[in-house]
């Protein structure tokens, strides 16, 4: 058998009239960490909850570890979920929260307690076993929720925005910790987030969703380098990609941007002359050069610096953002010259928004 742990074929989910998941096809190898990203309401939670069995799918096939799961109730799926609200049992102490699943299975008390202590050690909860959830901080509750999942050695871990209630610093820390745990356990994880940085840094594979459809699936850098659509291109990468309406030049070798003076950017290949396109330029791919000779000359609008990075926005419509390392001598009102390598010019069809 192949190494596929989770396999979705043509999965559909309707809430009454509303079509929440549309023909989802996805296969997840054992041991991979998959991030589901997308804007609010795109169906990430719905997909995750369908995997858990908390929602029943209305079409297609869902397999976990080779078994069809469509009609299997949650308790028999052997998957663990970490909820955004953690969903800790408020009337149980941490140790009881951790051992709940084991006690249900009839594991002897000492064995369950030993397992809880083991898990508590790996998640840094050892000194908190006797506390109630209400006596824990947000980060500690998060760990208990994780521990409750880990103790079961499930076939898959499902996370629904587990870090969104934590502050920024703790979030960055927990990101690493969750990933390290995943690697240590050799687990298969599906991780829902709307934070693309979280997805890019944690995951082996990223699935970008939009309106119930998978827009693109691939390794993080693959999505960054070769976005399949304007939506993915705009979603992945921070700050977001600049989009400029444009037209293919007469010789087909360049684009003419809809900006003052119709700047001409070579694209390193030949396309149908005169075709209307949308050109995507990542802020970090634009470099500032001599304003006299550059192909792209724009007035400087706002210059913002964080010390290590400087963000320059053009005073044009559409606005073009440029990111450079270090500082910039430019100031508002000046003219900046920009260049970009031909392979970094992304072109999207105006109608279908697919990449060209």
């Amino acid at each position, binding site marked *: 058998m192949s190494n596929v742990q989770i396999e979705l074929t043509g999965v559909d989910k309707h809430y009454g009239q509303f079509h929440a998941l549309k023909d989802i096809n996805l296969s997840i190898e054992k041991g991979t960490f998959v991030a589901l990203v997308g804007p609010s309401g795109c169906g990430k939670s719905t997909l995750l909850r369908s995997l858990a069995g908390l929602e029943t799918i209305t079409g297609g096939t869902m397999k976990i570890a080779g078994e069809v799961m469509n009609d299997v109730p949650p308790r028999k799926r052997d998957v663990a979920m970490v909820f955004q609200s953690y*969903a800790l049992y408020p009337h149980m102490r941490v140790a009881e929260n951790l051992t*709940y699943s084991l006690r249900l299975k009839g594991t002897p008390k000492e064995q369950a307690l030993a397992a809880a202590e083991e898990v508590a050690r790996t998640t840094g909860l050892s000194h908190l076993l006797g506390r109630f959830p209400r006596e824990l901080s947000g980060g500690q509750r998060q760990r208990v929720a994780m521990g409750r999942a880990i103790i079961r050695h499930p076939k898959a871990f499902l996370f629904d925005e587990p870090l969104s209630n934590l502050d920024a610093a703790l979030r960055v820390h927990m990101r690493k910790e969750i990933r390290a745990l995943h690697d240590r356990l050799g687990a298969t994880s599906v991780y829902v987030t709307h934070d693309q940085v979280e997805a890019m840094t944690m995951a082996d594979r990223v699935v970008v969703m939009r309106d119930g459809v998978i827009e693109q699936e691939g390794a993080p850098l693959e999505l960054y380098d070769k976005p399949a659509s304007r939506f993915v291109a705009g979603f992945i990468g921070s700050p977001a990609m600049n989009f400029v309406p444009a037209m293919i030049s007469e010789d087909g070798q360049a684009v003419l941007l809809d900006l003052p003076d119709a700047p001409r950017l070579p694209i390193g290949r030949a396309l149908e002359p005169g075709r209307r396109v949308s050109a995507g330029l990542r802020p970090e791919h634009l470099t500032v050069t001599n304003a006299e000779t550059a192909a792209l000359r724009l007035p400087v609008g706002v210059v913002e610096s964080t010390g290590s990075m400087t963000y320059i926005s053009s005073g044009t419509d559409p606005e073009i953002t440029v990111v450079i390392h270090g500082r910039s001598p430019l100031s508002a009102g000046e003219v900046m010259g920009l260049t970009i390598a031909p392979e970094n010019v992304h072109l999207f069809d105006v109608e279908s928004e697919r990449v060209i």
Partner: protein
Amino acid sequence: MDISEAPAVNSRRRGNPVSRILSSIRDGNGFDILLVAAPLVFLVLLAGLPLIYNVLMSFQQVDMFTLGAWIRPFAGFDNYISVISQPEFPLVVRNTIIFVVGSMAGQFVLGFALALFFAQNFPGAATIRGLFLVSWVMPGLVVGAIWSWILAGDFGVLNAILRSLGLIEAAIFWKSDPNFSIWAVTIANIWLGLAFNMLLLSVGLAAIPKELYEAAALDGANAWKRFLTITLPMMRPTIGAVLSLGLIGTLQQFDLFPAITEGGPANSSTVAQYWAWQMSFTLYDFARGATISVMMFVLVLFASILYVRSTRSEVRG
């Protein structure tokens, strides 16, 4: 802004006593005290004084001539001894226990079952649940009259149903058979208190986050285990409150007795509260009537303490 407002604040601080009290009522402690004092006065006048008067009376000799007085000859525990040595006392205690335990158990079990049923969120659940409130809106005397017909031995609906189901052969004379009379009132009271129990328990159920059940299901709990390990422990404060209020409500239930059995036949359905009323207002033995109600008050007090404690021990984090 700051400059123009500062003098106004100062003059208010230094104002005369009346305006100081007024401003304290507007935005200081005075308002809190006022809020607490108003219900307190109400309670003392309408509950506290009658209660004290009642307790006092249970230790005094009361007759028609001293009815309006506070000070009467002291009787010690004579009234209590006399109540306990009444020939019907054991029967009344037995009836009261049957009535209280039967009513509470029936109301609670059926109420919980209905609350769980309506928590399943099927179409129309909220509307049908609302209809149950009918029993709560109706006066006890009306409920008593209706149940009096339902329970009638010869033409009653209940007998007809039981007979057609083959559960009984001869008609049961619910109201006039001494073996059944207390149960007749208990059944009516269960119906009367059902909606209240169901409603309180529904509220408790609704307060349990859905995600806890989902987490438990993923942890491997089936419906029964989820009920035992999530619902019941999370409902503990609500259950405590419902049972305590149920006890109080049942000990207060009076209307059904005159409407259904009038305590008969031969006191076979007389409970403490009805007995107390009979003593005071048909035999005009106010001392013993008061004595019985003081005994009941001690019971209610006990229930109230349980109630307060159960609402205090909130488990929800």
